[in-house]
């Protein structure tokens, strides 16, 4: 029976899918994937409608395929992906939770899906009411007086928030120069601050991974516009001194911006507004379950404290005495519009559906079980993997590869090897303050047995590292493709198909 384990035999099935050609390579003359109704108006000579110079020739090299070809192609492509519906997807900082299907159903209601963004307000009262309710709900969750729903992602929310801070400070005559950002922060924080017109000053974390009050105090000069901080931070550690931080900043006329990417860990348990936070964005595609879609779309509403309300993007959605709703553009100090139309409306629909499904008890339970699950993994793996920061963590836990590097097995290898065990790897090499970080966020969705299977796999990999390190170093072995030559991709970039 030796024959049957030979790789060329064992991989036929996988290869069939893995060898799926590009849709362009499936093209064949005469095939067709669509039909339109026959043109039902008298056809006029093209030249009478549009001068030839403004027209194009045929779209060269565009595809000719049937609907069957398209169905096959994308079905096969889909099979090359792992997904939340199939198992744990513990990307730290990404809150890969269960995406309820009722949200998808509601978003597809024709009255929502086919409403047009430039309709008269009286024609879209349902939409405006929905947005209004979502703002009310987020206000309560944030403990802040107003929320803008326009930003379509976390980073977009960050830019919105910092632009408001800038405008508010500019109004006092001095927009200031710096935004303080801890070294544990996500890359979008400095990038957004820069796009908002600020320079970045990085704050060093202490041994708990958090920011010392003294560090902050020393850094907050008259030139500092705001501190941009993630709570809990990217190690999952809560900044217990958050209120004192706010006081320090406020005393100097600076603002406290909270990156709310980790809201899942304390939603319904504590409120940013009660911590002295002035601005916070929430990634609805994280805490509020809108599906990640292979990289988006998301939404990044921003809540603000009273002093920043005048600077919110326009329009805001308001309710009249008579119960009707309207868009209010009368905010002279507004930073302006962050995007055409009303943001990612149909992502917002999904998020509100989710908030209603959870209710106050459910939101609280999210945080409780998310934190329980993360701490369970922490407890099960802490003897096997190095825990660089020992402070109690909430919804995620960050290990490092320190115990494995002596065998020349690194975080990347561990991540790849996890794939052979059927798991998507955690976030790796982030936060930057941990060398070889493995950042694990299970979310509240995961059942105990899935967490156990994951921990068992991690422990097995640690054992393999001792006994057969090459096996781990050369992983993955069972995926549709194996380790890629990423350097080659960057050195000689091929960024599109071209006809041979």
């Amino acid at each position, binding site marked *: 029976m030796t024959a049957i384990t030979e790789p060329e035999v064992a991989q036929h099935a996988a290869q069939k899918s*893995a060898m799926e050609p590009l849709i362009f390579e499936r093209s064949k003359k005469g095939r067709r*994937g*669509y039909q*339109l109704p026959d043109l039902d108006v*008298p056809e006029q000579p093209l030249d*009478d409608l*549009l001068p030839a110079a403004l*027209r194009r020739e045929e779209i060269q090299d*565009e595809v000719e*395929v049937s609907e069957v070809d*398209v169905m096959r192609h*994308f*079905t096969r492509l889909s099979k*090359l992906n792992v*997904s939340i*519906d199939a198992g744990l997807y513990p990307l730290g900082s990404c809150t890969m939770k269960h995406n309820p299907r009722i949200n998808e159903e509601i978003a597809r209601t024709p*009255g*929502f899906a086919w*409403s047009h*963004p*430039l*309709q*008269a307000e009286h024609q879209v009262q349902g939409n405006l009411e929905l947005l209004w309710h979502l703002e009310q*709900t987020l206000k309560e969750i944030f403990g802040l007086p107003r929320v803008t729903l326009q930003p*379509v992602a976390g980073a*977009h929310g960050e830019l919105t928030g910092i632009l408001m801070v*800038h*405008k508010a400070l500019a109004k006092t005559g001095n927009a200031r120069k710096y935004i303080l950002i801890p070294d544990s922060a996500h890359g*979008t924080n400095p*990038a957004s601050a820069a*796009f908002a*017109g*600020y320079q*970045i000053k990085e704050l060093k974390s202490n041994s708990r991974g958090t920011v010392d009050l003294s560090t902050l105090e020393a850094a907050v000069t008259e030139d500092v516009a705001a501190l941009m901080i993630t709570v809990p931070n990217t190690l999952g550690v809560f900044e217990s001194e958050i*209120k004192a931080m706010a006081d320090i900043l406020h005393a100097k006329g600076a603002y406290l911006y909270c990156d709310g990417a980790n809201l899942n860990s304390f939603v*319904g*348990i504590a409120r940013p507004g009660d*911590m002295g936070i002035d601005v916070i964005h929430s990634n609805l595609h994280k805490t509020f379950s809108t599906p990640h*879609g*292979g*990289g*988006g779309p998301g939404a990044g509403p921003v809540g603000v404290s009273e002093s920043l309300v005048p600077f919110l993007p326009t329009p805001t959605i308001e309710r009249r005495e008579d119960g009707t709703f309207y868009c209010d553009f009368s905010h002279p100090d507004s930073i*302006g*519009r962050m*995007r055409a*139309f009303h943001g990612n409306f149909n992502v917002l629909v999904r998020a509100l*559906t989710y908030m209603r499904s959870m209710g106050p008890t*459910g939101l609280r*339970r999210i945080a409780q079980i998310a934190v*329980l699950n993360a701490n369970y993994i922490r407890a099960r793996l802490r003897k096997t993997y190095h825990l660089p920061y020992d402070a109690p963590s909430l919804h995620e836990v960050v290990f490092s590869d320190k115990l494995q590097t002596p065998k020349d097995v690194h975080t990347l290898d561990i991540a*790849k090897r996890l794939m052979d065990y059927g798991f*998507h790897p955690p976030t790796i090499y982030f936060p930057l303050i941990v060398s070889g970080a493995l950042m694990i966020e299970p979310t509240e969705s995961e059942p105990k047995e899935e967490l156990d299977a994951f921990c068992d796999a991690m422990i097995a990999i640690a054992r393999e590292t001792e006994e057969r390190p090459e096996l781990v170093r050369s992983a993955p072995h069972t*995926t549709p493709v194996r380790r*890629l*030559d990423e350097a080659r*991709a*960057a050195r000689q*970039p091929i960024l*599109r*198909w071209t006809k041979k």
Partner: protein
Amino acid sequence: MTNLPDPTDSSSSHRYISNAGEDIREMLATIGVDSIDRLFDTIPDAVKLKGLLDIPGPWSEIESRRWFRGLAARNKTTADHASFLGGGAYAHYQPAIIDQLLLRAEFLTAYTPYQPEVSQGTLQSIFEYQTHQCLLTGLDVANASLYDGSTALCEAVLLAERLTKGKKKVVLAKSIHPHYIDTVRTYIQNLGLEIVEVGWGADGRLDLDALRAATADAFAIAVQSPNFLGVVEDYDAIVGATEGLTRISVIAEATSLGVLAPPGQHGFDICVGEGQAWGIPPQFGGPYVGFMVVREALKRHMPGRLVGETVDVDGKRAYVLTLATREQHIRRGKATSNICTNQALIALAANMYLSLLGKEGLREVGLQCLQKAAYLRAKLREIQSIELPFAGPVYNEFVVRTPFPAETILADLEHEKILGGIPLGTFYDGHANDFLVAVTELNTREQIDQYVAALSAAISRERR
């Protein structure tokens, strides 16, 4: 906290959260604490909530369906009206297989393909999407997506600015979608840049004389075609007047690329736009998909994600996120953009649409839009007191002028179950009687004829 529910009680169980009573007790034992509350000890009591949030719920699906469908029923939409609305969001045909494929968990619930070995589906689709963008625009390198058309224009302006450090002026055609211009204004407010708007001539096209006057010291020029008035711009003429500037073409009606000259073959360096017209429902403005395609030379300045081809250790062709040193997670404060999460699922839908329609279909959609709009225009020209104020060539959208306020006329049409247009006065002073009308392959001749009749009746009515 005594009023708060006990998480181990079975009445606390929630359908979206697997672990319940029995699990929780087992897990707490492993962790070595006696209650979940202990795990939150690092949050000071002072900032902890003493009770529950004051929000509705938890609702069953039954209750959610009732409430949300009730809201949706209060909208008047293309679903139950004949719609002639455009202005950057168009009702086109959506092939049935697309939405059902999007619901596949492997597409819907995966995230950014950081780990290529288990994400080839997403990666290969993005690579294909990038290719479609290149073929359609005549440019060389497309990214994986941006938020939407308006923010794509912002990114294009910032990209152009990076190319020519020193110059601070960007020329924008006033006939670019007003929301896009507003968004650019917001984005650049602290960056020391100046926007100069150039208006349109009598035919609705960019005023070339004004353009020439505005280009001095500018680093870039952006025009939209068809522009917000529906008029198709003359790329070659604009190129002639903008020597030395980075030229940005903006596409707000993506299906127009099926019949209109591709900007990349007419002197433009960057093409940005909104992909919604590729079969994405209007859904009140989002989620849509912004695209950006640039000349080869600009690729390392590209914002957002890029997927490239490579091979695996066995030499098998594969796809991977590449040129990441441009991006925020590596370059942080010096990245080409702050974008992280983008509009991947909508880009996937666009890839499916473009593949299904293909070479023939993209052209046919364009031609049907063109012909149907022409048919409506011809009919409207027959009606006395209706004016089509801009004489320039159009694709599927144009401005209609009557002697009466646009809102009044449109309200009359609404009574006939017609969403008849978008008042132009909202966007431009002095256009109170004008409105934008769009026609797509979904508008039947019968609808168009009814539109003409209703509009004609509305004008007669107002005249009385």
